[in-house]
């Protein structure tokens, strides 16, 4: 993707953001920690005309884990699906606002959602390996993207990166459906890594897993964040506290008259601060377990 379109430059000036280096490539070490991978401005989502998520503005940094927490139904999945345009697949869903990915608005009319998804990987709540062999699962993304290099090597590296290689190296040709739930989820992570994205979105990736498999996924995330920006949705606050550098708290607002409900971003910041010294009363109540 070419991030230097005139429209995105103008949009950035309007939002008054500091200029970020206009490069889709991971930027050099000394600058990266402040330049955002995602700059999200006034993001709202409607399902068939009903608002589900309202005016979310948030920056996502590279090589960090950002946790999205909040009660069930507050729009966490809706939010994360906006970041790789998966909401396009939901009939009746409309997105307004801006999602700047390295400065380029991924909702600009000339942006191909397919190209967006190649750069921004996603791991789902329920492991969803294809009913194909382990090898073919990993090779799927590279193959459809016309990968020309050494596929065996790429498969091995992806599986190693997902800490799954040792467990499956002898059953690469066997069906991925034979793996355990935790292995399947790591396979899905490996599959996402194989297309070499620079962001990985994870929507409650461990909620269908047992505690041991969960720990393995969390350890894996710590490895992956050295290379990727990771955004993880979780309703498990301990998990958010354990794994993430930054946390965003979403919460459901209710219109008393119409009883319409929508999600808002209450606050976001360093995970430690969100959990120990939240600014907002609702965050405090939520993280101390008073509701949710």
């Amino acid at each position, binding site marked *: 993707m070419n991030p230097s379109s005139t429209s995105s430059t103008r949009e950035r000036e309007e939002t008054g953001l500091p200029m970020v280096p206009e490069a889709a490539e991971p930027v050099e070490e000394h600058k990266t920690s402040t330049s955002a991978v995602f700059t999200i401005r006034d993001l709202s989502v409607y399902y068939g005309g009903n608002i589900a998520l309202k005016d979310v503005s948030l920056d996502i940094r590279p090589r960090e884990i950002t946790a999205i927490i909040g009660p069930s139904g507050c729009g966490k999945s809706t939010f994360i699906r906006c970041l790789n345009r*998966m909401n396009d*697949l939901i009939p009746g869903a409309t997105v307004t606002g801006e999602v700047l990915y390295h400065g380029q608005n991924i909702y600009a009319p000339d942006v191909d959602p397919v190209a967006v998804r190649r750069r921004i990987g996603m791991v789902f709540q329920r492991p969803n390996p*294809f009913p194909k062999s382990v090898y073919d699962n990993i090779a799927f*993304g590279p193959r*459809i993207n016309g990968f020309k290099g050494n596929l065996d090597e790429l498969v091995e590296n992806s599986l190693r990166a997902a800490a799954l290689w040792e467990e499956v190296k002898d059953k690469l040709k*066997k069906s991925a459906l034979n793996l355990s739930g935790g292995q399947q989820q790591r396979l899905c992570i490996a599959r996402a890594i194989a297309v070499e994205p620079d962001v990985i979105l994870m929507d409650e990736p461990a909620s269908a897993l047992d505690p041991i498999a969960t720990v393995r996924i969390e350890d894996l995330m710590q490895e992956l964040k050295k290379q990727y920006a990771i955004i993880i949705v979780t309703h498990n606050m301990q998990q958010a506290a354990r794994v993430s550098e930054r946390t965003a708290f979403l919460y459901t607002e209710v219109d008393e008259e119409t009883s319409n409900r929508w999600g808002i971003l209450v606050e976001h910041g360093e995970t430690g601060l969100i959990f120990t010294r939240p600014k907002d009363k609702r965050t405090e109540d939520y993280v101390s377990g008073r509701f949710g």
Partner: protein
Amino acid sequence: MNLEINSSRPSARRLWTNRVATAGMAVAVALALIPVGLILYYITKNGLAAMSWGFLTEPTPFTFRRPGGGFLNGLIGTAIMVALATAASVPLGILAAIYLEEYGKRGWLAQLVRFFSDVMTGVPSVFVGLFVYTAFVLPFGFGAIMGAGALAIIMLPIVIRSAEEMLKLVPLELKHASFALGASKSQTVLRVVLPSALPGITTGVLLAVARAAGETAPLILTALGSLKVTTALIGEPISALPLLIFDGARNPFAAGQERAWAGALELLALVLIFTLLARIVAARSKISR
């Protein structure tokens, strides 16, 4: 609340209801299986008695009275026409199903196609024969192509609707997984949806093939039947196993009737072998577990 184990033991009344219902279902299953069992029994018994190597390799004699001979002409005719009909209706049917499920969805064109394939499933096959007869046989004459055309028309709605049902069963999560990896719609359909639905689609195709292999009425009007062994696709009538079974069974002579039994067994075995083969191929093409 009384939570003692004793109190949760099923009452005598419930036990009896359970037993009666189980027995009722067993009887229903048995009743349903009786006709199937009898058909298989008589075809196998009478068919084996009349079966011989000659039957498989010789054409039908000119009179029903003469013993010996066989249904080679019909075997070849059935093979040609069913193969042609399958080659035409299966790709077309699967493409139509993909259109309906993945692209047309609830649009008017898709609804129209769905409506007509439903109507076509219910149309008596003799009407299909009559249609092909009027439209194509009258100008061009009887032949294998005509018979295959009629069979394809009969197979098409079966393939479409069964394939559509199978495509519907492919979990949305798999499509999402594919899209999230940067696959386009067509890549997702061809590389994820279709392979996942393939075993089920195979079943539907087999059903359609078996149905076509056994069709008689439309072939009378399109292939006509012939005692000659021919592989001509057009220009001359051709025979088929069901046609020969029909002819043999309705004549009063023992030799002809015996051939009809043997022919019925041959047709049954053919469908069975084909089903098994297709299942093995489908199982092979899936990856080892």
